């Protein structure tokens, strides 16, 4: 089974880390990631930019409403995510709206990725191998 581990923390606290503190945490995480990679268990790892860099697409209406800032409702739940390569915010917002036309309702939060380790697990199914 593939699992997603979603990371939550207070971004003002993490953002206040010094460069050294941040690097120390990242180095400790890298050790764990390396171990997982050796075992062939590591899928993509992403660190996102702060929520101030986020844009939200509400696709529960037509045309969708594009808002600055992160998704802030608590009534809806996180059901999945995409990682796409885009040359600009406009392009990725267009992509989000295209996805929204395929699956209206709910919201997409579009957030730039600061760091991505694509991992080494080739597992693409949902069954344990």
């Amino acid at each position, binding site marked *: 089974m593939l699992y997603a581990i979603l990371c939550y923390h*207070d971004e*003002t*606290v993490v*953002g*206040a*880390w010094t460069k050294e*503190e941040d690097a120390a*945490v990242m180095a400790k995480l890298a050790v764990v990631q390396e171990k997982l990679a050796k075992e062939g268990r590591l899928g993509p790892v992403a660190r996102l*930019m*702060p*929520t*101030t*860099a986020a*844009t939200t697409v509400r696709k529960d209406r037509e045309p969708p409403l594009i*808002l*600055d*800032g992160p998704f*802030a409702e608590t009534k809806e739940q996180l059901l999945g995510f995409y990682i796409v390569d885009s040359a*600009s*915010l*406009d392009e990725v917002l267009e992509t989000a709206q295209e996805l929204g036309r395929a699956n209206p309702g709910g919201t997409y939060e579009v957030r*730039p990725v*600061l*760091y991505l380790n694509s991992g080494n697990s080739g597992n693409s199914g949902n069954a344990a191998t």
Partner: protein
Amino acid sequence: MTEIGWIDAALTSARPQAVAALVRYFRDLDQAEEAFQEACLRALKHWPINGPPRDPTGWLILVGRNYALDHLRRRSKSDPLPDDEAISDREDAERDLVERLDSSHYRDDVLRLLFICCHPDLPATQQIALALRIVSGLSVKEIARAFLVSEAAMEQRITRAKRQVAAANVPYETPGPIERAERLGVVAAMLYLLFNEGYSASGGTEHVRAPLCEEAIRLVRLLLRLFSAEPEIMGLTALCLLQHARTPARLDADGAIILLEDQDRGLWNRDLIAEGLALVDKALRHRRPGPYQVQAAIAALHARADRFEDTDWVEIGLLYGLLEQLQPSPVVTLNRAVAVAKVKGPAAGLEMIQPLGNKLAGYFHFFGVKGAFLMQLGRSEEARVAFDQAIALANTAAEAAHIRLHLDRLMKDSRPA
């Protein structure tokens, strides 16, 4: 990170919002600060045992408010409120006592607190000092060190500034949209000044004071979190991030200035650049250009150039032209002249800056730029005069040293072979 370290970080990050809310309750800066101080002490006592509350800011506001009310009641010999031991976030005991504070509540509180610091009668540096003390919670000692004055002098300045703002009576009602926009503009300008105070220090031996830049970025980010749809606040955040990204490359080991063209771009902080570029992208979607956005767009063009030779000077010249329209100033024209000179040569640049001589007679960079144009045109004697004037106006030792390098080169070139 140790537990106490985590608590410390949480208290620091909660401070602007917590103090802002307490100021709204008490309508008094000193009382709000004291209440926050007390709440922090209690947090240091309780959090290591009970664990951190789910909403640290809400906890601090509530405990701070209760402490102050308790204090007042005790003074008036009436019944005390329940002990704050009872306020455990885990049992959601405070849910009945205080509304869950979300960003819409904090928004105007934080803006008001920052705006209070921007009293128009206070000189800009005192506005900044006051904001660092009250909003950021830096100690007087730290602020004094940042401004290179004695602790006693800074203490006096801040006390005087506090008295002045207390008398100003900034209204506590929720501001209307126009008033809010005005406050936002004033506060943004103050935060940019704070950033610049760190980015190119206005005096002393140190040319860059990174902690001031970092504090400015923290506050600007906070403002953007609260006012997430304001393109100018996006622009300001991007501008600070993109400029601060260059800090590791701006000075050499001896503290001498390294010009943009000579900087090792490998030292630029790529994470900050990526975030800055993302914010510029976000801001431009609004198609409501403003001075911070345009300056951020210029910084973005520098950041996007892998080598100095790759810089898009044509676009930068156009952006400075736009900035001149939005915010006419001889300094902006001077910067546009530098961009134009890169495309059309030093003669064109020199022609553009000639009319600025009167307005910028006391401006270090004017003579630095003028000297550089003259030097490129081979007019060594005039260049030397301009550089001498620049040195006389230099704000820091690094600025003066940088111009001396030009002079040395001129001297060498003019020596008979």
